[in-house]
């Protein structure tokens, strides 16, 4: 019996017939993002209160308005105008999107941030954390009602450099997943230690019918062959 590998990626099929793959963010990074936002709001409020307290009654009125805006609208405004990213989420490389991968709008953002009040109950985001931990895509209650998702922002990766070896033909016909695995091995080699690369390649030594010592070079050669001449 084969067990499905653990995978938190979330697939959306688009009308164009392709699958978009989103990576929902878990409790820890979201909590950190919130803590950052809380800190930023605290600093903003403190600084502006110092300034506004110089202006008497008008200042107090403005301060009350400011408190209201920071408390209830800070997240909404940033999410709507800054592509789903409040400053804290920006720093943690997160963003908010709708369930179907589209940008978050006024209504959804307002719902998820008003219902934050319930997520915070009874204290310290207890309900939100429980909901987040038991949900397959880590939604808190506000996200459930608004139909939104917090995901990691994908940043374009730099082009990997493949090891320079002569191209080889694979000794047997490879399936698509095997091809991708071999290419992935060659592309990721820069990030792997020499020992780890050898260890991984030696798994393939027997099917490739080579000595484990030469498996790395063999795999790199096959990857070259799959990619084609530069």
């Amino acid at each position, binding site marked *: 019996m084969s067990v499905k590998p653990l995978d938190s990626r979330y697939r959306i099929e688009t009308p164009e017939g392709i699958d*978009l793959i989103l990576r929902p963010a878990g409790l820890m990074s979201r909590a950190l993002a919130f803590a950052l936002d809380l800190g930023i709001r605290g600093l903003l409020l403190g600084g502006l209160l110092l300034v506004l307290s110089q202006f008497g009654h008008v200042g107090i009125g403005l301060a009350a308005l400011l408190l209201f805006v920071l408390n*209830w609208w800070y997240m909404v405004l940033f999410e709507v105008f800054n592509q789903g990213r409040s400053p804290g989420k920006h720093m943690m490389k997160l963003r908010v999107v*709708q369930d179907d991968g*589209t*940008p978050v709008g006024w209504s959804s953002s*307002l719902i998820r941030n008003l219902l934050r009040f319930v997520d915070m109950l009874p204290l310290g985001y207890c309900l939100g954390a429980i909901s987040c931990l038991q949900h397959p895509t880590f939604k808190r209650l506000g996200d459930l009602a608004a*139909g939104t998702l917090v995901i990691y922002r994908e940043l374009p990766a730099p082009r990997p450099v493949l090891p320079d070896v002569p191209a080889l033909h694979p000794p047997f016909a490879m399936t698509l997943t095997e091809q991708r695995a071999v*290419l992935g091995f060659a592309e990721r080699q820069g990030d792997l230690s020499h020992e780890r690369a050898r260890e991984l390649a030696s798994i393939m030594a027997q099917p490739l019918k080579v000595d484990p010592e030469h498996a790395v070079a063999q795999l790199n050669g096959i990857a070259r062959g799959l990619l*084609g001449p530069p």
Partner: protein
Amino acid sequence: MKQRHFEARHRQAWQDFGHLLDSLECNAAAPMACRSFTAQYRHLCQHLALAQERGYSSHLVDTLQHLAMRGHQQLYRHRSHLGASTLQFILAGFPRLVRAQWRFVALACLLFFGSLLMTGWLVYLFPDLVYSLIDPQQVVEMESMYDPDQSRLGQLAARQSSEDWMMFGYYIMNNIGIAFQTFASGLLLGVGSLFYLFFNGLMIGAVAGHLTEIGYGPNFWSFVVGHGAFELSAIALAGAAGLKLGWAVIAPGRLSRGEALRSAAIVSVQLIYGVLLLLFIAAFIEAYWSSKTAIQAPLKYGVGTGLWLLVGLYLGFAGRTPHAP
């Protein structure tokens, strides 16, 4: 086709599409450049499907996937209904929505105004009851706010316009905060909204009953009658929106609970937009009209009655005809 050939052939197109996305994301795209957006996006989707099907390397697939994701974000958007048609919403949409949700609105009103009137009446009959509902310290503060002698001495009369502004800010923060709480706590199977509606009714009723009983009635009623029309109905409507959320979780009908909650939330948030509007009007009236002691009480009662009628007629009858007035 080998991956290298594929990349060499289409790299330019991908780069162009990336640049177009860059400019779209900072709202700086030239209209002419956007003409070919959908064609470029479709090509990219096709390339992505090909790359996956031919088993090209993860790096290439991920790069294309990233571009497709950004294109998808630009092409498909949920249009905000409110931004496009605010006027339509105020003139017809909001009252229609309130009437369509009349069950929740009726329940919320019954609970809120019911507990308000009941407590007010009870406190009026049994004056000591107020001390078991409200902290004695707060009762004293309330009394001093509406003391006829004090205001005649000029504390209220001498309020400057800057103070009006201060109170405006305070009312916005306080009242909208209460409305938001009443709404949001409805998610807890409606219990939170029921509690806040009942509790707020209780508090307001107790204060009203107590002040009337000790003879500060004229001062108090002439102050609250104007903005009360907007403020109290807004709190009741926020409660109704919360009850709708809770009811969707309790009785989702033929939908799954999550789906029912999502569709209820879309309706409720529209109600909340209306509540916001009412509360802004209320805060404005409260700060700039209700607090003016120079205006005679009969005039205030007259205007107050007019405003209650206005809110009632607006919620009851606006937008009944299919064409906007």
